[in-house]
């Protein structure tokens, strides 16, 4: 009860802080406005840095020859066009129209020419000719779409792209993104599977582009943030001290800073990344300033988060009766007397005690602008997120400075810097990652409901009779923190060597510093000792990347205009990691936590570990277009990685692609259906080097042992060396079509692809009789084949309302083609076997419940008892053993995708985004222990009420009894298909006249909800689940995972 009051209190504290800070911003900015005339009088104005185009000063004419031009931009139907780019010709001076199509620009003279450009509209040049007010009508562009997409080591106009690339542009992003960029991508891009692994604030996601290409090597796409690779495998970036959750590296990127996200999918696009391209590449670029346009944006939001659902469990009375039944059946005395049962009532609802309504606050401030020479974008953001499990949270501080400047006419220098600091309290949830039963979610579900949280004297009840720890005590008392500092920096210099030769050299660094702290006080120590235990760990990673490229660019040909772009370069990457761990136990007091290890009485052996790898690459690409009709791309990368055997360090990854813009052919000119139609096809090779280091070498491990009362160090071989270790190679064929119909009212992109991965880097389980459990080999083939479709309906109008719709779907089928001479092998309950996709669950087929002795006699389970589970004797040999297992489900979805819509009406914007997954199955391991029905002190799901008894001859739920062998069967496999409303937002944009009075460029308030609606048959917390995090072999397993939240949010966006 006490804790609930605390939540309510902290809720009000949170919301009042939020409202206060919003008021502060509004009041202080309008105060600044009011103070402006006085400031001017006392001469402070000149020092005000945002003077050039801030609205505040727009009425003040400077003593130069400059003219102020105002105006409105409309489309052909007379509706205002927001976001139109206006530049003064021959300069970098520019601005944009506001929401009502209005603009103000200062020009050098009354003879200036203004250039109006807007995506999807014809560019127009308007001479000012002494006017101070201009009204411009832009007509929609039929032929061209000048959208630029980011590709590897460069950018390209969308119409010239021959590869398969999906991208999100800023317009598509939510009004006020809060969570990591991967969440923004969900459901927007065909063929990009994104699943949230856990609801821990800052928890990881699993991302697969066109299915996983590998069995044991990495399956995560390569992330490049402003030119610097960001390692997505969070599990590997840990000192191994804090347990129970990894932080998503993308938490370090402020989503408000993102300018674009490009996903490179086919080999033509990814081969330029060679050995790291096989799983696709995600390129994130961040914002830069616009010359002559100072922008200050303040975003903030406040959210409430709740668990999506809870699992119905037995209450104390039901639980006591259930346990009595099992005890009596086993010949023991009843555990609870009738009198005791009557006094139990509902007992403790442990889920209620562990989950909470959590608060999430987010503030972000950015300033951008620049002049002809220099542009800047600076931002800072702060997020304070409580988790929906008590005592889990995340505090995140992000800073960014992006700076680009022209040193001379032909030399440009720029830098993008991110500094992020994250403090996180992690609760141990999954039994899979914690390796023990101390997971909080496990505890919330399994803890004996007849027990209270506290003894009468106020101390914790530590555990149930069978050692399920008290989840409240463990969540609240255990310290399990990760403090993470990330620095991402990329410095580049560009020389225009000649008019069409550009040299670019970039040096990037990615530093990660994780401090992990763990303290278990003696007050919650379970059996063993009264010792408190503290551990600290430091994980340090530095990855530096250097790239040097030369680009040749030329257009030529009069009758047949042609363009040629050639790129060549060298890149070097090196990564080093260091781990340090220390620990002690037996502290005289719990007060010192982990702050003074030397005060302990028993010391763990300190551990250090260093590790590293590097990569040297040569790359090249040619893009050629002929007459705007025929497009040709060829690229290649020659990569050397330290991770492979001496003779196999280098791999060659070529690709080629062709495109045909049919819409530019003569015979299409008469058709007015297609404004653009392009066919493209590509083929290429990419590689995968995401294995551990040193796999080709024969290394030794050390262990501590004790003989003669002395500590000794033992040394033994840790692996079977594989000097022939080499690249895993993925061949990908892609054919696609891009079309725009009816003046780009509808655009459609469709792709078919087939990827075959050979020489799979496989960690094959080998018999323990060798002394090893597995060996790393190159073996076997894996195929992914699929189709993707994306349809966008751009700007449908109903009177004053405008509507944008988009839809995408992707179907992928993966299959292991062969495993060489290796036997099928198991990873947990999944089988890896030829002809099957990864993630195939392998187990017994449940056929119901034995009703009587006669059924048992005639069955393959002669030792069963009535009420036991009955399994199919698949090989009909009259007994149930390992031979009776078969594939009983698959974790990979058949079809994934999403759809979204955005409706503009007057000053309102309503947007909704859905994503869906069809045909995947989930192994609900949580339910397996909630329906174990063994009569132990672990609580059971309400399903147990329907268990078989002689009076309740259920054929679905077996009887409760001790010691039934725990067969893994399809009883625990569930359909994981779902349709989810990821996001629903209603925003109100303040009208121009009001803004002018308030002196703001932009004010928007919004309410939104995340995860509000999910349609699924899945019985667990959430169908988006992975108890084993990003592990490719153990997807779709729900094992007491931190449940995802649903979120209600209000927010404010201010632009000055």
């Amino acid at each position, binding site marked *: 009860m006490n804790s609930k009051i605390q939540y309510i209190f902290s809720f009000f504290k949170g919301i009042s802080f939020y409202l206060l800070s919003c008021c502060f911003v509004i009041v202080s900015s309008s105060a600044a406005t009011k103070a402006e005339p006085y400031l001017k009088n006392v001469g402070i104005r000149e020092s005000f840095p945002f003077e050039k185009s801030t609205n505040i000063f727009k009425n003040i004419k400077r003593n130069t020859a400059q003219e102020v031009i105002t105006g409105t931009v409309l489309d052909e139907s007379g509706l205002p066009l927001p976001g139109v780019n206006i530049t003064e010709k021959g300069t970098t001076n520019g601005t944009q129209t506001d929401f009502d199509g209005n603009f103000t620009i200062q020009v050098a003279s009354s003879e200036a020419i203004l250039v109006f450009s807007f995506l999807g509209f014809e560019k127009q040049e308007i001479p000012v000719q002494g006017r101070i007010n201009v009204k411009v009508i832009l007509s929609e562009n039929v032929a061209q779409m000048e959208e630029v997409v980011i590709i590897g080591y460069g950018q390209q106009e969308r119409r010239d792209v021959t590869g398969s690339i999906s991208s999100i542009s800023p317009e598509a992003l939510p009004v006020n993104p809060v969570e990591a960029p991967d969440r923004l991508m969900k459901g927007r891009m065909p063929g990009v599977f994104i699943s949230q692994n856990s609801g821990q604030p800052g928890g990881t996601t699993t991302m697969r582009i066109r299915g996983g290409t590998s069995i044991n090597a990495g399956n995560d796409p390569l992330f490049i943030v402003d030119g610097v690779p960001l390692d997505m495998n969070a599990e590997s970036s840990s000192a191994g001290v804090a347990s129970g959750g990894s932080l998503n590296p993308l938490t370090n990127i402020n989503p408000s800073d993102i300018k674009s996200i490009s996903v490179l999918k086919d080999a033509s696009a990814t081969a330029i990344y060679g050995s790291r391209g096989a799983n696709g590449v995600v390129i994130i670029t961040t914002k830069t300033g616009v010359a002559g346009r100072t922008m200050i944006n303040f975003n903030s939001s406040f959210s409430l988060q709740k668990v999506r659902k809870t699992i119905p469990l037995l209450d104390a009375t039901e639980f006591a009766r259930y346990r009595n039944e099992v005890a009596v059946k086993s010949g023991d005395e009843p555990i609870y007397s009738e009198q005791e049962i009557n006094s139990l009532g509902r007992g403790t609802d442990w889920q209620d005690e562990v989950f909470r309504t959590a608060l999430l606050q987010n503030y972000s401030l950015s300033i951008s602008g620049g002049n002809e020479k220099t542009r800047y974008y600076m931002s800072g953001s702060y997020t304070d997120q409580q988790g929906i499990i008590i005592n889990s949270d995340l505090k995140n501080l992000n800073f960014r400075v992006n700076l680009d400047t022209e040193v001379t006419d032909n030399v440009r220098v720029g830098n993008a810097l991110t500094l992020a600091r994250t403090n996180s309290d992690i609760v141990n949830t999954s039994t899979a990652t914690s390796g023990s039963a101390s997971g909080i979610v496990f505890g919330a579900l399994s803890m004996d409901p007849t027990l209270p949280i506290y003894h009468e004297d106020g101390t914790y009840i530590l555990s149930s009779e069978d050692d399920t720890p008290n989840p409240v005590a463990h969540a609240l008392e255990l310290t399990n923190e990760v403090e993470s500092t990330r620095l991402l920096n990329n410095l580049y210099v560009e020389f225009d060597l000649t008019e069409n030769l550009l040299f670019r050299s970039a040096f990037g660094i990615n530093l990660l510093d994780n401090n992990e702290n763990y303290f278990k006080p003696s007050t919650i120590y379970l059996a063993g000792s009264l010792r408190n235990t503290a551990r600290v760990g430091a994980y340090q990673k530095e990855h530096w990347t250097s790239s040097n490229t030369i680009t040749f660019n030329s257009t030529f040909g009069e009758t047949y205009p042609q363009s040629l772009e050639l790129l060549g370069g060298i890149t070097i990457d090196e990564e080093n990691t260091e781990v340090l761990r220390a620990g002690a136990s037996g502290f005289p007091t719990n007060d010192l936590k982990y702050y003074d290890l030397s005060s302990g009485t028993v010391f763990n052996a300190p551990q250090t570990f260093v590790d590293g790898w*590097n990569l040297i690459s040569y790359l090249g690409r040619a893009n050629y277009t002929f007459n705007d009709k025929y497009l040709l791309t060829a690229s290649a990368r020659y990569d050397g990685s*330290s991770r492979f055997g001496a003779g196999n*360090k280098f791999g060659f990854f070529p690709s080629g692609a062709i495109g045909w813009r049919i819409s530019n052919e003569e015979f299409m000119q008469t058709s007015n259906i297609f404004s653009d139609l392009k066919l493209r096809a590509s083929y290429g090779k990419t590689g995968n080097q995401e294995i551990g280091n040193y796999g080709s070498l024969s290394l030794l491990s050390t262990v501590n042992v004790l003989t003669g009362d002395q500590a000794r160090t033992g040394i033994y071989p840790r692996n079977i060396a594989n000097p022939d270790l080499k690249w895993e190679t993925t061949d990908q064929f892609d054919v696609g079509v891009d079309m725009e119909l009816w003046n780009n009212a509808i655009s459609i992109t469709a792709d078919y692809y087939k990827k075959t991965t050979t020489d799979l880097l496989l960690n094959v389980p080998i018999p*323990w009789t060798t002394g090893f459990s597995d060996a790393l080999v190159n073996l076997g083939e894996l195929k992914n084949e699929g189709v993707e479709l994306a349809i966008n309906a751009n700007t449908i109008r109903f009177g004053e309302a405008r509507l944008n719709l988009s839809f995408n779907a992707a179907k992928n089928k993966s299959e292991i083609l062969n495993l060489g001479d290796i036997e099928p092998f198991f990873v947990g309950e999944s089988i890896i076997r030829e002809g099957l996709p990864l993630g195939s669950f392998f187990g017994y087929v449940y056929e119901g419940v034995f009703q009587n002795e006669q059924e048992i006699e005639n069955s393959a389970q002669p030792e069963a008892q009535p009420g036991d589970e009955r399994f199919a004797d698949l090989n009909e040999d009259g007994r149930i053993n390992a031979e009776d297992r078969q594939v009983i489900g698959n974790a990979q979805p058949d079809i994934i995708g999403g759809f979204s819509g955005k409706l503009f009406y007057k000053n309102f914007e309503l947007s909704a985004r859905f994503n869906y997954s069809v045909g995947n199955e989930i192994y609900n391991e949580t339910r397996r222990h909630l329906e174990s029905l063994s009569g132990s002190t672990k609580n059971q799901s309400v399903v147990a009420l329907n268990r078989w008894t002689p009076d309740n001859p259920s054929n679905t739920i077996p009887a409760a009894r001790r010691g039934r062998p725990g067969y893994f069967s399809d009883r625990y496999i569930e359909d994981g298909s779902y349709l989810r409303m990821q996001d629903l937002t209603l925003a109100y944009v303040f009208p121009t006249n009001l803004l002018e009075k308030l002196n703001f460029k932009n004010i928007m308030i919004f309410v939104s909800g995340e995860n509000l609606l999910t349609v699924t048959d899945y019985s667990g917390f959430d169908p988006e689940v992975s108890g084993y995090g990003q592990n490719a072999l153990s997807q779709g397993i729900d094992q007491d995972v931190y449940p995802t939240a649903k979120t209600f949010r209000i927010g404010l966006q201010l632009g000055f």
Partner: protein
Amino acid sequence: MKNLRLLSLALGLLIVSCEDNLEENPQSFLSSENFYNSEEDAEAAIYSIYQPWTKDHSRNMYIMNAIPTDEGVPRVGSSDPLDLYEYGPTHGTITEMWSLMYSIISRANVALDRIPEIEMNEDNKKALLAEARFMRAMAFFRLVRFYGDVPLILDPTVDMKNVNAERTTVATVYEQIIEDLEYAESNLPDPNNTEEGRPSNLAATGILARVYLTNQQWSMAAEKAKEVIDSGKFDLMEDFPDVFIPETQPNKENIFVMNFVAGMPGDQQWELKYYLPTEIDDAVARGLGRYVPSKEHLYDTYKEGDLRRDWTMWTSFTHEGETWTFAPHWHKFMDYATLNNTDDNNNDIPLLRYAHILFIYAEALNELNGPTEEAYEALNQIKRRAYGENFKNESSVDYQDLSQNEFRQTLYQERKWEFAGEWIRWFDLKRTGQLIPVMTETMGFAIPERYLLFPIPQREMDANPNLVQNPGY
């Protein structure tokens, strides 16, 4: 021109990037190419064998030797399939036992492969090789009794060829065990020059006696037991508890032990943690009460005056005026100094003690010639001590006038009482043909024949197509 100069400078920098960088240089690992050169390296190779030997060892041995017998039951309400005789090839302990034993064998094989090339003191080299062979024999001796035919692996695995070994017959495995132990017997140092936790030449002799007894090679068993007895290096401790408590370890009774010291690196001894009753206040004793002896089939079977019962088990505890009572719990490896800190304690765990040699001697003689005087003396020494008598002098509690079969059955009973909780019961029941009848009576239903062997772990069956599962699983 200026641009070209800049370009050439940049390109010059590029070319400096040398591809030698791709050479891996692991700094936190040793590489086997430049190891196994010195005497210290040889010793380190031997020490590594003790890690799988002590890792979860006592728990696994307890679970497989006590739980499926009349000696122990898991705690009340538990549902370990071993206790219920419903276990199969996926049982965790059965699986771990297999993998740990083969880790021992593999590390011993590496030592036996690499140590001969090392230039070092030849006597010491032989002693280390003997130690590796002793440990390999210990692992195979366990495997062959638990699982029957097992792959006989005698060389280290260095590549992926021939990783899928077939099962070798029990008889062939025993030949190798005996050969290894005989080598160990002739080359290991004597007990005076052996550390706690490591084997001496007489440990090898004693284990040989046990191997022969298991195979019913009575005269060889008697001969080897006699060698240990006649060596004069070992004897019974006067008081039964002194065998087990840290204060009197090492001692003259323990021939081969697992060595534990609280707070030292290496694996922790955890007996107390799992055995202490949960009834005792947490502040006084921190126990899980997870494994408890059978009241009906063990505690209540001790005869009046047998002092071993109350050291082996306890039913109450008094501390600072407060008393807790509970069902019988194990007490044999008690370390009162670490009661409330049971994460690790100081007791060495005896794996072969002098009492065992006496039992082997008595049993073998009885099987050969009936109850001879020497057989009586050996058995009676143990009984005298159990009843608080001076074991060296004839006593009123002495057994006498037993037929050969009576002597045999009496000896079996005495072994049960003497070694309760010391991971011998399942081996004894199986060796003496009592497993099925005794467990059928204990469990109250017919125990199928298949339980005479544990199943080959399913994980191993899945990984190795050349393995055939034990019948019935």
